[in-house]
């Protein structure tokens, strides 16, 4: 009964032992409660202090985006020290090429449009005048859970004349939401639904988790009877989607979304079934047929047709994605390339822009503050030089920057660069075991010839009828022909060359820069990783309904004055098997020698 003497004397009035135990227990209980309440109080205060600190840290990255006259607009968020900032397409589309941006330091900065993703409602701009902007640190939106706390920052109703952003707080109401393109082309896929207040002017502003990690861009809300103000259901474009587009946006492109060339439906028993497949598609050639069950797309499991739309919508056009399906023969894995959805040649106009009065379609909150009388724009020349209009581009100036970055590095590395007619003779053998393959390739300006195990194949660049390919190494000749063009550095070798953003290359499984070249009907995607000025691979599209010629390049080395890969990997045909060829010798010939024919 040692414990009982801890109970106050007035309570211990000679009652039973049981009574003593009861009070002991009550005392413990009271202690538990008080500890618990003290902890809770402490926790709340600590959390509040942490929140205040987080906001202090992230606030300088918030941008108030306005048109050149400093009127109307929305919000944005800085993503790098050199002034790149993300906003909504529907915020920047009315402003033109140049904008005024206010930061929480109270200062106004000039900004230029860089790239747009009209379908995904994303725009990239660049603020000028500093190289030490504060910027937001991205999180992982795939980890976002329903119920988690979030903060939205921006300039609702353009409240702050000193550009200090407004903070609204809420929870995640839903994840992986799909919002149809209501009366417009703007489509919100795989987005985050929040109950934080989102009002006109919040558009383009960032969503943060409670730790201050940037997880989305707030751009859309459900409005109905109550007018164009917060109704507790707003939608944020996920950071993981935006990240897949930033490389493209930085290249000054009008980035498109993709289609898969097949449709799906949810069956009654909750399976995703293929409904229709285009006979000209990658998917069809790889065996995908109506009725088969689709299991995963881009490595995400599918339980409904909406799931499929959600996955499809987060990738830029041209991305190659893995697909898994099941039919009577079992499981199948393949990759397919997304085809263009809209193929905009110019920045598309939003329907509501054309309306005189504030938008009738209230799905997109914008801060529109009345009519603005048009004054002649006063854009400084230094800013004007950052914008070049060109069909098919948002701002060609930025494409030129990135194209030259890739091409100039190549130029420095390749000795024959700029020689319009080098010719190479290359001998090779297959690297893997199996039937021995040996060959000799002659790559010249007029064509590519190959002798494979003494069998001749010839492709002419002048005669469209002469386009042979070896069934054992399909696509090798056409891709080698394109490689000669690239390494020759001949300005006339391609009708078009442009920087096409960044992609996650398959089968290399790493992020690479893409240089796109066109020559006749042949479109090449050259892949460059940061470690090397030389390409790590190329995919050549050369005819509709035929698989791309796909090569990987490894072990680049200088050989007899030519830079050439030591190994070439060929991903052949619909089965997508990768086979490596060892390049045994490379000989450079002068122009006249290139006239010699193959054996």
């Amino acid at each position: 009964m040692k414990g009982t003497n801890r109970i106050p004397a007035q309570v211990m009035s000679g009652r039973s032992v049981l009574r003593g135990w009861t009070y002991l227990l009550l005392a413990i209980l009271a202690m538990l409660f008080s500890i618990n309440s003290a902890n809770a109080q402490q926790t709340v205060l600590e959390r509040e202090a942490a929140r205040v600190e987080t906001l202090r840290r992230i606030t300088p990255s918030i941008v108030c985006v306005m048109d050149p006259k400093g009127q109307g607009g929305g919000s944005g968020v800085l993503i790098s020290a050199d002034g790149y900032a993300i906003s909504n397409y529907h915020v920047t589309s009315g402003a033109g090429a140049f904008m005024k941006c206010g930061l929480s330091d109270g200062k106004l900065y000039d900004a230029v449009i860089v790239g747009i993703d009209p379908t995904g409602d994303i725009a990239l701009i660049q603020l000028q005048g500093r190289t030490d902007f504060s910027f937001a640190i991205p999180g992982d939106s795939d980890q976002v859970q329903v119920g988690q706390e979030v903060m939205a920052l921006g300039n609702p109703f353009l409240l702050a004349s000193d550009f200090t952003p407004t903070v609204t707080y809420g929870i995640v109401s839903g994840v992986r939401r799909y919002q149809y393109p209501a009366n417009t082309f703007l489509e919100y896929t795989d987005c985050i639904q929040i109950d934080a207040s989102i009002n006109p002017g919040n558009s383009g502003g960032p969503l943060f988790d409670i730790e201050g990690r940037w997880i989305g861009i707030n751009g859309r809300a459900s409005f109905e009877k109550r007018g164009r103000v917060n109704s507790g259901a707003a939608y944020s474009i996920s950071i993981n989607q935006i990240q897949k587009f930033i490389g493209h946006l930085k290249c000054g492109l009008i980035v498109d979304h993709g289609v898969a060339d097949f449709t799906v439906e949810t069956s009654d028993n909750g399976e995703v079934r293929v409904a229709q497949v285009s006979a000209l598609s990658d998917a069809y050639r790889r065996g995908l047929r109506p009725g088969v069950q689709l299991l995963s797309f881009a490595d995400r499991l599918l339980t409904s047709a909406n799931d499929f739309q959600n996955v499809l919508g987060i990738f830029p056009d041209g991305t190659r994605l893995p697909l898994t399906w099941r039919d009577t023969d079992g499981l199948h894995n393949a990759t397919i390339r997304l085809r263009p959805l809209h193929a905009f040649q110019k920045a598309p106009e939003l329907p509501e822009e054309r309306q005189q009065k504030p938008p009738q379609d209230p799905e997109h909150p914008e801060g529109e503050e009345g009519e603005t009388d048009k004054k002649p724009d006063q854009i400084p020349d230094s800013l004007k030089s950052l914008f070049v209009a060109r069909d098919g581009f948002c701002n060609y100036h930025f494409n030129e920057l990135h194209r030259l970055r890739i091409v100039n590095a190549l130029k420095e590395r390749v000795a024959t660069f700029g020689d319009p007619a080098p010719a190479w003779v290359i001998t090779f053998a297959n690297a893997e075991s199996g039937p021995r393959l040996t060959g000799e390739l002659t790559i010249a300006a007029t064509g590519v010839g190959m002798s494979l195990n003494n069998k001749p194949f010839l492709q002419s660049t002048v005669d469209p009828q002469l386009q042979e390919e070896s069934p054992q190494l399909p696509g090798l000749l056409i891709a080698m022909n394109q490689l000669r063009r690239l390494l020759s550095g001949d300005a006339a070798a391609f009708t078009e060359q442009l920087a096409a953003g960044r992609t996650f290359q398959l089968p290399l499984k790493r992020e690479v820069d893409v240089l796109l070249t066109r020559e006749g009907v042949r479109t090449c995607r050259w892949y460059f990783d940061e470690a090397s000025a030389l390409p790590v691979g190329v995919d050549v599209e050369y005819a509709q309904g035929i698989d791309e010629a796909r090569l990987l390049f490894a072990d680049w080395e200088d050989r007899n004055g030519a830079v050439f890969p030591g190994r070439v990997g060929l991903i052949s045909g619909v089965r997508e098997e990768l086979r490596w060829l060892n390049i045994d010798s490379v000989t450079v010939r002068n122009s006249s020698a290139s006239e010699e024919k193959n054996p």
Partner: protein
Amino acid sequence: MNMRRISTRTNTVRHQLPVRRQCSIFGWPGLEGEGPQPRGFLRSAQSSPGHPFVLIITLFLVSDICQAAQADFQSTADILKSRQQTIVKLFGAGGGNLDSYGTGTLVSAEGHVVTVWNHLVGTGYLTAITADGRKFAVDVVGTSAEHDLALLKLRTAPGDLFACIDLSKVIDTDPGTPVLAFSNMFHVATGNEPVSVVHGVIAARIPLEATQGRWKFPLKSPVWLIDAITNNSGAAGGLLTDTKGTPIGLIGREIRHAASRTWVNYAIPLTTLKPVIEALMSGKKFDSRPKDSEANTPMISDQELTAQFGLTMLPNVLERTPAWIDAVTKGSIAAKAELRRGDLIVMVDDAVITSVTDFQQQLARFRSGDRVSLTINREQQLLPVELLIP
């Protein structure tokens, strides 16, 4: 066939807990206040004589606290997921301002669903989609106009069981309680997608005087007012819980307060509805919806209609003369709304207009400055028109 889908009741419900503990999950503002329950309980326990009963209660409470403490660390996401499982997406017929979708809350493992007795319930071909994406036809078991409540039953196959809220565990609570509202507002979720959840705090417990068109909110006993926008399109019939997922209310309609004309966000306490739901489940019938008495209903006179609105209606010569527009005065409010001679007014907000008298009575329910949405029939097409009340 449906064996693998059998799910059980999820009884994570606990006794009333101090408000401050609940805040540690979310930490949203205004939660630092003292929770009065534990102290009050301790006092009453100490004043009672020593008795084994007290010991048992105490032991029980200690274990309860331990569990509650664990629940604090149990992921919020798990609580939300288990509650989202009890919500069904309802689909019926709508039109004009009336949504064709709604929300229901499962109250029995056999597939009983409660929702608000709104237009959706009366459409005759209601369907429900459960959280796992299965679709069911729905029968109306019973309704109570007084409680604005409808009890539905999914037409299930034998052996189907559903996750549901446990009516025996619903609790009463106080203003200041942080709450979660689960509903398929705006029809955001489709198929097997989880419904939306928003957070808020109970702002008040008051009798509600509110109207929706000509319809008056019938319940006389108090409801929960919530400080968040919980009552959106399609949200009626959703579930209000505390942050532990304990059911406390049924989300009501999109409705305006009678005096202020502002939208109110309310939920009917489940402690109020529980006996009604149980009565309906046992087959009891309540009075049907009371008829509006037309005699003393205020109305906008013909003269007022012409002078203030610029609307002249076809003369009321029949018992039920349709609400045809005979003339529109130039520059009037009616002209600004682009109303024309020959338009037939079929709806005012969400009330169907059966006669010109009906129309004049409906208009009288609004106040100056209100924007009323009319649905008109013009050349066999239904058009929405917004009219400003002068």
